[in-house]
């Protein structure tokens, strides 16, 4: 039985109040990730980015679901849903192969999150979206092609 409850944050416009609480160290996050991986983010090919992340040996897997449009209405905002059915998934990494810098990000789901993420990315030209999942120290990958179109006038 599912119990659906919903809550909406009332936007607080007191700029900086919460930020200062964070600055005081009250809310500072504990990071399981290594520092933001500059080498991977600045790599100009997917394989170089995967090497920088240490996931270049990923093997193909059918247990990764990538939901993205076959044809995107606007390459500036391409919605992607990723679900990993690989048991013990701890991280999900995303690469947009034809982008100038393919590595788009990694999501750490090892501390109580379900192996799922929704994100929206810019895709400069039609490109495979490659997903690499880490589970039990091993890496698995899958890809989906997204075509980017040119649209009409004002939308």
């Amino acid at each position, binding site marked *: 039985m599912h119990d659906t409850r919903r809550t909406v944050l009332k*936007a607080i*416009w007191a700029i900086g109040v919460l930020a200062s609480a964070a600055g005081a160290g009250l809310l500072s996050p504990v990071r399981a990730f290594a520092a933001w991986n500059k080498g991977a983010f600045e790599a100009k090919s997917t394989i170089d980015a995967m090497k920088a992340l240490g996931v270049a040996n990923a093997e193909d897997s059918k247990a990764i679901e990538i939901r993205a449009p076959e044809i995107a209405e606007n390459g500036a905002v391409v919605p992607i*849903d990723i679900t990993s059915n690989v048991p013990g998934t701890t991280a999900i990494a995303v690469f947009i192969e034809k982008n100038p810098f393919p590595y788009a990000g990694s999501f750490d789901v090892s501390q109580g999150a379900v192996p799922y993420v929704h994100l929206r990315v810019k895709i400069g030209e039609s490109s495979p979206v490659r997903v690499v999942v880490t589970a039990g120290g091993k890496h698995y990958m899958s890809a989906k092609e997204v075509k980017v179109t040119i*649209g*009409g006038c*004002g*939308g």
Partner: protein
Amino acid sequence: MRVALVVGLVAAVPWLQAAAQSVDPTAAEFDKFRAVLEKDNPAELFEAKGEHLWRTPGGPKKASLEKCDLGLGPGMVKGAYAQMPRYFADVDRVMDAEARIVHCMISLQGFSYAELAKAPFSNEVRTPDPVSLVAYVAGQSRGEKLAPGRSHPKELAAYNNGKAVFFYRAGSFDFSCASCHGVDNQRIRTQPLPNFTKPDQALAAVQGWPGYRMTGGVVHSLQWRLNDCFRQQRFPRPEYASETLSALMTYLTVNASGQVYKGPGIKR
């Protein structure tokens, strides 16, 4: 710049062709992911900003907009957007939501029309306050049925004037609004063009704007969208928040009346 725009349109015209929308797989794919995009619409960030602006004293008179009458009485925002455009006795004219907000910013907060009309449209670095405000007001009519004014003589006149504007052909391309949006099953490139003379498709005119435009990542209002139609027709631009635009919005909204408004949209 101007040359580039003309070349762009000429290139687009051969693509202005009939397409069976119901079986077009591209349109079907867009529709599928449109629902995903609508579920979390960045327009909500601008609604929040608009709500803050509504409640915060501002302008030369340091007043908030909480006494602004959107047609349901001073300060009543809930459901007001779905009942506009409508006739307002205090100004003896029909106003759409943004025109009314501009009126309140002038009369309550002390802004000048010239100031507000100088650069009224959003870009990557600036979202004018009336745009955030209209996004907020529109968001407060989510789930309401569209019921624009259609009984006062000036509301009837606005509808008729708006209809005349919609069908008026002129300019270097002999275009009218109806050239693109008065025919079934047309598209430009991959974008289907709704026929606003049909009640079900007219909703698309009202539903999208104010809305978040993925190109540029900004919120635009219906004032901007209709202004841009005039530009694309190579017409002189209509005056911001003018009676002409309120009339055109009256025509479009009356065509869609009775249908449920979903709040600010998300557009290509």
